[in-house]
């Protein structure tokens, strides 16, 4: 590689890099401008504006938007208030779904990735099949499973010989929502794990084999540590995705029974964008975001490399 592409260190001083001199100072900003305009209007401004909204009683249709300080937040933390009780019911739904779905969405895809981590005919075909549901999107997935899970005419009851109301009874609704989500996104996590497995140097496995390590020992001593960065990413992304579950519940259970499967993001959207109580909805979104960031911090903490000081 050319020395000129290295930007740091004394080399840069010794060989003046031509790419610096011949450009006007504003050239990089011209390259960045279109993206930064979008970034400012739809990413930076909304973060501040959302918080500002949460400090108000904000209805899009009413001219008066009185400042209420942290009143909306206080409301949410008052279990006696209507908003508070609705919100924590929804947070509970989000929590149940996340806790129930994330472990399955880590272990099963990892198992599938391990099965496919070898050279054999048809590997790419299997990979494509398991990944296929994910490209369909939640709308199609929701319709198909609404049909298959129908309590009266659904295939699931028919083939399992059951008479379960998957879309209206607790706890079957949770089994249904988690099951559908596993079917939908297993392939996504599996291909990410598979890519991670293929990045583990073959020599490590061979060295362990020469040392007489058993298959299980190789798995725990070579495979799992090698997968750590990928696992951090997958666990984190899966928690965030599960905590933002919306379409499955909207399409398959419609929040039933009695809002027990209405997730936090579902409630936020309904409160802010159907009832136009945007102050309350914004406050809800910041509380949910705080929980999500806490969860991410815990994941990064749990997977920290303890061997490095």
């Amino acid at each position, binding site marked *: 590689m050319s020395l000129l592409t290295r930007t740091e260190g004394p080399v840069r001083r010794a060989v003046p890099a*031509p*790419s610096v001199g*011949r450009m006007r100072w504003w050239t*990089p900003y011209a*390259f*960045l401008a*279109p*993206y930064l305009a979008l*970034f400012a*209007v*739809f*990413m930076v*401004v*909304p*973060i501040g504006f*959302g918080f500002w*909204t949460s400090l108000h009683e904000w209805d*899009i249709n009413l001219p008066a938007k009185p400042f209420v300080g942290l009143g909306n937040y206080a409301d949410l933390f008052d279990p006696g208030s209507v908003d508070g009780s609705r919100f924590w019911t929804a947070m509970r739904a989000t929590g149940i779904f996340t806790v129930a779905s994330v472990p399955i969405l880590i272990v099963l895809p990892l198992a599938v990735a391990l*099965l496919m981590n070898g050279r054999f005919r*048809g590997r*790419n075909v*299997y990979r*494509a099949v*398991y*990944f296929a549901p994910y490209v*369909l*999107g*939640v*709308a*199609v997935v*929701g*319709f198909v499973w*609404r*049909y298959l899970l*129908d309590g009266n005419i659904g*295939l699931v009851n*028919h083939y399992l010989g059951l008479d379960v109301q998957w879309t209206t009874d607790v706890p079957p609704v949770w089994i249904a929502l988690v099951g559908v989500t596993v*079917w939908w996104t297993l392939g996504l996590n599996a*291909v*990410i794990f598979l*890519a991670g497995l293929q990045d583990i140097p073959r020599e490590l496995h061979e060295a362990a084999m020469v040392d007489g390590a058993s298959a299980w020992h190789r798995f725990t001593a070579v495979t799992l540590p090698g997968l750590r960065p*990928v696992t951090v*990413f997958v666990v984190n*992304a899966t928690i965030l995705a599960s905590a933002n579950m*919306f*379409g499955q519940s*909207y*399409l398959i259970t419609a929040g039933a029974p009695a809002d027990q499967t209405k997730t*936090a993001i579902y409630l*936020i959207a309904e409160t802010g*964008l*159907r009832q136009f109580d945007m102050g309350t*909805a*914004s406050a809800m*979104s*910041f509380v*949910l*975001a705080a929980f999500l*960031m806490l969860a*991410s911090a815990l994941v990064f903490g749990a997977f920290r490399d303890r061997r490095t000081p």
Partner: protein
Amino acid sequence: MRTDLRRVRRALLHLVLAVMAALYLSPLVYMLSTSFKTREMAGSTTPQWIPDPATTDAYREILGSADSPIMTWFANSLIAATGHAALVLATAAPAAYALARLRFRFRNTIFTVIVATLFVPPVVLLIPNFLIVNELAWVDSLPAVIVPAAAGAFGVFFLRQFFLTLPGELEEAAELDGCNRWQIFTSIALPLARPALVTLFLLSFLTNWNDFLWPIYVLLSPEALTLPAGLGNFQGANNIRYDLLMAGAVIASLPVIVLYLVAQRWVIEGISRSGLKG
């Protein structure tokens, strides 16, 4: 002995994977099958995998129905997904190039701020972005589903990783030939980045085509809806008409399935690698 054991293990592996694959595809097969059934058969308690008699009534009914202009939704989705993916490329590519290849004063600051937003839970953007889109008078129109999501940091992040790997010699040679930065970007960096650009286009297209939450709240009138949003409402109105629902689902799946069959490797490689290099 050893080879026999290996053969048995291999056969077992194929058996497990094949059974799983069949189970995996069966819901989609049943969706396709039901879309060709009559209304009565679709609501029957005995499963029927091959429709007999097969009919296109469901397709005819939803395509002909006035309150669910499914072809308009289809066109809307196509315009939105294409427009969104094009906008992502047009804005993220030059930005990523500048952040990867040019040296300037606030480069690290800008990049850090952009990457930091990858950690902001998107739920906090929902309400304010609706208000902003409302101020722009985009509610109930396609710009609302094309533009705001293009502010996401993923495209810039993804392309920057790619531009960082380009060798510097080509750019230097072009510079000696008197090319300016924009010419170097368009005639050297972009053509070399074609695989990454194609992947990003596909991922952006798929994400937008399948987006559900945002369009059902920001698009309101029947003729403005995208396909998933339209079908979402449609389900409420036709709860029991599974033949119609499955026909709608098949229509909504067609473009992504075609895209997936054509570009499966790009999609999977792109997605499986996108998270790893952070």
